[in-house]
C-alpha cells in the first residue's frame, strides 16, 4: 500500500478498503523501518498523526463529505510553522521551539484532513542544495545512501522516494523543491509566486520563497496543490484570484499542438551527459505526442545565478535578524543583550547561513547597494523580460532540472560556488516569479541515478505544468513499463 500513489490511497480510503489509522500506522512503521538509514525526519508526531487519522475516520464514518486527500499522510518540511510541534528550520537556533500558531498551509492541510506525520530535514533556513547544511544531520538519498537527496528540501523528497509518505510539502527559493525532486526521482512543483501563502513559512528570501507540493506522481501533486494554494488575506503578496484547475489539467494531460520552448542557455557545458540525454529523450516523447519543439533564447539567464546570490542573501540577512535570543530560540553567552545576541548568533547559525548573512549585509550596505543589490534587482527585470518574450514563442519552457545527478555527501561541501551551480536551471523561475515543475526523466546512463525534466509556465498558468507534466509522465511510464521508483534499491529490513 505504501508504494501506491496518494490518489490510489485516497480511493482506498474512500472505498473503505482501509482506514486512515491503518494507513498512518503503515507509514509510521515504514519510517521506523528505514529512517535510521535515510534520516529524512527531524520530528515524528506519532500521537498527533494517529489522532488526526482517527478524527478523519470518524468523520468519514459519519457520512461527512471530505476533501479528496482526507486521511492521506504527508511529510512537512521543517521550515513550515506547525502549532505546538517542534519547528527548527534545520537550525540549532530554533532547537526546541514550538510555534504558538499554524502556518496557513498547515491550517489548510488540517482542514482538508491530510495527516501530518512529522517534520522533514532541510538545509538550515533553506540555504543549500544538498541538505548537508542541516545543523542536525544530513539526509541520505534512498537511491544511494552515500549520496545527497538534494536541497534545501532533501528530507521531503527522500521521504517520498523511501515511501515514508506519499505526499510532502517543500519550499522553493532557488530550486529547493525541484532539484531534490530531480535527484530522487520524484515530482516537485514551485507554484507561481503568490500562489501559495507564505504566512507561517519561515522566511529565507521573501521575494523568492514559495511553498509547493511534492509527490510521486503529477496527479498527486495537483491534488495537493489545490489543497494548499489560493488567496490568503494574511499574506500581502498572495494572488487574489482563483487557482487554475490543476487536477483537471493533470487529468486532461495532453500536449497536442502545444509549443514547447527549449531554453538554449540551460544546457550544454556544465550539464552531465546522461542528464542531457534523458532530457532530449523526453523531448522526443513530447514530440511524439504532438507537441511542437522550438528553441528559445533567454540571453540574460547567464546572470541569474549572480543575481540570486545577491538578492537572496540580502533578504535573508534582514529576515534572520529576528533571531537574537530575546523572544524565542536558544540563548547563550553572558553580559549585555548585545553580547548575548552576538554569542547566540555565532553558535546558533551554521557556516552557510553566516556566509550568506555577511554577504547580504555587504550587498545592502551604503556605498555598495547600487553595485550589488541594486544591480541584481535590475537583472531580475531582464530575466522577467526574457521569460516574457520566450512565452510569446512557446506555451511552456523546458530544461533539465539540475545539471547533475546526486553527488556524494561531502563532495561539494567545501566549494560553495560548485554547490551554488546546482540551482543554475531552477533559479531563473524564482527570480521572475513564474512557476515550474520537475518530473523524473529517467535514470542517467553513467550512474543509474535519477534526473529531472523541468517544465516552466508563465505566472498563474500553473495548470500548464500539470497538463504537460502528466502527459510526459504517462508517456515515460509507458516507455519504462513501471514507475521509476520501482527501480530504486529496496531499503526495507526484509
Amino acid at each position: 500500500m505504501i508504494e501506491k500513489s496518494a490518489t490510489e490511497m485516497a480511493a482506498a480510503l474512500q472505498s473503505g478498503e482501509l482506514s486512515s489509522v491503518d494507513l498512518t500506522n503503515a507509514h509510521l512503521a515504514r519510517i521506523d523501518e528505514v529512517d535510521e538509514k535515510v534520516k529524512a525526519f527531524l520530528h515524528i508526531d506519532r500521537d498527533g498523526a494517529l489522532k488526526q487519522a482517527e478524527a478523519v475516520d470518524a468523520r468519514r464514518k459519519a457520512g461527512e463529505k471530505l476533501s479528496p486527500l482526507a486521511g492521506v499522510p504527508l511529510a512537512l518540511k521543517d521550515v513550515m510553522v506547525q502549532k505546538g510541534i517542534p519547528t527548527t528550520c534545520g537550525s540549532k537556533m530554533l532547537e526546541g521551539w514550538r510555534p504558538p500558531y499554524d502556518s496557513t498551509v498547515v491550517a489548510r492541510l488540517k482542514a482538508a484532513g491530510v495527516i501530518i506525520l512529522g517534520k522533514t530535514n532541510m538545509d538550515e533556513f533553506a540555504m543549500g542544495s544538498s541538505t548537508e547544511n542541516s545543523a542536525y544531520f544530513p539526509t541520505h538519498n534512498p537511491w544511494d545512501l552515500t549520496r545527497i537527496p538534494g536541497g534545501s528540501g532533501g528530507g521531503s523528497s527522500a521521504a517520498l522516494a523511501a515511501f515514508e509518505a506519499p505526499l510532502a510539502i517543500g519550499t522553493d527559493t532557488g530550486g529547493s523543491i525541484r532539484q531534490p525532486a530531480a535527484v530522487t526521482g520524484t515530482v516537485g512543483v514551485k507554484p507561481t509566486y503568490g500562489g501559495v501563502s507564505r504566512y507561517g513559512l519561515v522566511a529565507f528570501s521573501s521575494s523568492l520563497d514559495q511553498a509547493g507540493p511534492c509527490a510521486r506522481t503529477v496527479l498527486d501533486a495537483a491534488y495537493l496543490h489545490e489543497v494548499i494554494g489560493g488567496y490568503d488575506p494574511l499574506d500581502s503578496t498572495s494572488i487574489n484570484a482563483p487557482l487554475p484547475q490543476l487536477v483537471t489539467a493533470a487529468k486532461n494531460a495532453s500536449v497536442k499542438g502545444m509549443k514547447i520552448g527549449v531554453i538554449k542557455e540551460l544546457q550544454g557545458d556544465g550539464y552531465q551527459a546522461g542528464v542531457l540525454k534523458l532530457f532530449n529523450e523526453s523531448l522526443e516523447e513530447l514530440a511524439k505526442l504532438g507537441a511542437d519543439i522550438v528553441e528559445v533564447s533567454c540571453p540574460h539567464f547567464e546572470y541569474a545565478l549572480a543575481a540570486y546570490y545577491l538578492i537572496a542573501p540580502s533578504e535573508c540577512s534582514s529576515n534572520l535578524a529576528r533571531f537574537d535570543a530575546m523572544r524565542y530560540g536558544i540563548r547563550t553567552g553572558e553580559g549585555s543583550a548585545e553580547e548575548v545576541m552576538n554569542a547566540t548568533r555565532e553558535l546558533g547559525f551554521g557556516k552557510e547561513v553566516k556566509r550568506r548573512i555577511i554577504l547580504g549585509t555587504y550587498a545592502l550596505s551604503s556605498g555598495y547597494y547600487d553595485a550589488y543589490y541594486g544591480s541584481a534587482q535590475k537583472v531580475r527585470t531582464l530575466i522577467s523580460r526574457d521569460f516574457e518574450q520566450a512565452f510569446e514563442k512557446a506555451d511552456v519552457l523546458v530544461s533539465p532540472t539540475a545539471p547533475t545527478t546526486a553527488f556524494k555527501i561531502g563532495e561539494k561541501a567545501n566549494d560553495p560556488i560548485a554547490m551554488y551551480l546546482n540551482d543554475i536551471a531552477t533559479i531563473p523561475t524564482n527570480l521572475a516569479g513564474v512557476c515550474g515543475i520537475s518530473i523524473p526523466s529517467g535514470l542517467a546512463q553513467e550512474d543509474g541515478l535519477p534526473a529531472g525534466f523541468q517544465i516552466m509556465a508563465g505566472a498563474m498558468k500553473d495548470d500548464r505544468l500539470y497538463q504537460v507534466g502528466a502527459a510526459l509522465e504517462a508517456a515515460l511510464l509507458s516507455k519504462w513499463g513501471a514507475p521509476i521508483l520501482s527501480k530504486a534499491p529496496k531499503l526495507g529490513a526484509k
Partner: protein
Amino acid sequence: MSKISRADVANLARLARIDMSEDELEHLSSELSVILDAVARVQEVAGEDVPPTSHPLPMTNVFRADENRASLTPEEALSGAPAKEEQRFKVPKILGEE
C-alpha cells in the same frame, strides 16, 4: 579582484551581530572575495535604463480593514521566551541608547 578584507568582514559581522572567531573572519574574507567576484557580473547588464524589480508580480494597494483580530494569550506570546518576568520578556542589560 574585488577584495573584501578581514576588517571589512569584522565590520559586517558587527553590523550583523555575529561574534566571529579570527579563523572565521579570515576564511570568510577569502570565500566572499571569490563569491563577490562571481556575482559582480550583474553590473555588466544593469544599465541605467533598466528599472529594478522588487516584486515579481505587479501588485499594489493590498490593505486590510481597521478591525481587531484575536491576539495571542500572554502565555502563548511568551511561550518561547528564554527568560521572562512579570509577564514580560526578560533580556540582559541593553547597552545602546533608547
